[in-house]
């Protein structure tokens, strides 16, 4: 059993030589290419991640700009709507005032025309009534009166008629 615990120097030297050779060989043959590939892949992934982050920040910037523009357009459209509503209200008031003025003018004109027509009809009626009255009076007294007398008589008649009409009312 003692031999189990007594190291063989020859084996130790061979182990050390073998291990050192292995380190050199694996460094060239295995770890170099493997770690190189890993580093390259990690570098590529890092680059891709950076590019993706850059693209995302760019997209976010564009989105922010668009939102700002949209907000500006909204504000502008609100202002335009408000201005249009104000203009519409002013136009409506103006048109209403004009329409009222036109209506008043038409009303006054119509009233004036009606009054004139009435006066004309009254004068015409008076003429007819006077003619009829004179005709009746001529028939009654058998002779005609001169125009001066007719006028005096008729004026007196219509005066009485107007006063009696006023008294009736």
């Amino acid at each position, binding site marked *: *059993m003692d*031999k*189990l*615990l*007594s*190291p*063989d*120097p*020859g*084996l*130790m*030297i*061979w*182990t*050390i030589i*073998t*291990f*050192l*050779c*292995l*380190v050199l*060989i*694996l*460094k060239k*043959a*295995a*770890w*170099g*290419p*493997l*770690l190189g*590939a*890993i580093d390259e892949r990690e570098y590529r992934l890092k680059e891709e991640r950076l590019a993706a982050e850059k693209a995302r920040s760019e997209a976010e910037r564009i989105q922010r700009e668009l939102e700002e523009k949209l907000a500006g357009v909204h504000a502008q459209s609100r202002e335009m709507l408000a201005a249009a509503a104000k203009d519409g209200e002013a136009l409506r008031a103006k048109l209403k005032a004009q329409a009222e003025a036109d209506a008043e003018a038409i009303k006054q004109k119509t009233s004036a025309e009606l009054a004139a027509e009435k006066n004309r009809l009254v004068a015409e009626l008076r003429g007819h009534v006077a003619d009829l009255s004179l005709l009746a009076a001529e028939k009654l007294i058998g002779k005609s009166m001169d125009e001066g007398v007719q006028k005096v008589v008729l004026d007196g008649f219509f005066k009485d008629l107007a006063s009696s009409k006023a008294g009736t009312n």
Partner: protein
Amino acid sequence: MNFEHVLAHHLIDHKLFHFMVGPVDLGLSPLILSMWAAVLILTAVTSFAARSQSPAGRRMRGMVEPVVLYLRDDNLKPIFGDHTDHFLPFFLSLFFFLLMLNLFGLVPFTSGTTSNIAVPAAMAIVTFVMIVAVGVKEQGAASFFLHLVPNGVPWWLWPVMLLIEIFGLLGKCFSLCIRLFANMIAGHVVSLSFLFLIFIFSSMSHAVGLGASPGAVGLALFAYLLDVLVAFLQAYIFMILTAVFVGMSVHPH
């Protein structure tokens, strides 16, 4: 059948021929040939995994790469920081070398290289040299030996502390050697012990020996499977402790 004789036959090296260089016999032995075979397989497998673009190469790389990344990112980077890439080939080789030797020792008809104390002892010497060499290179010889003693020690205690720390350094490497050797030889001893139960029982009666054999083989198989786990574990422990010790000489504080 003598248990000690069988164990010695399995684990003690026998020179195939003698080649004396001074007092040291550098003649080849089955253990050395086993070690070279393991190293050749390891070199072939890792080179194939690192270089081949074939589907088999990619599959192999898929097995080796996670181990390499785990050792680099989770174990060596916290210890060495920016120096990791400099030390990485050494520690990866150390881990895979010990793992391959441990596993190779479990293959039938091969020799358990790490179960022979010379191999763990040689690796412990490599560790010791590495600790001192890296410490001297990074800090300078004087600073390295000065930093062996912790700060704040009274001057009259300093020589004693230096001696204790040097023994502590040797002790760390000695413990590395004994830990690997004991764990690896224990697997062989336990497996052989279970198998020897068959012979012990059959010396009483052949029927009892026959009855005990399935249980003994089952237990030996269990110990063997446990040995596979121990092979990985001990390779990792040796590598990480070496990294910690070397790391302490890179960053003394």
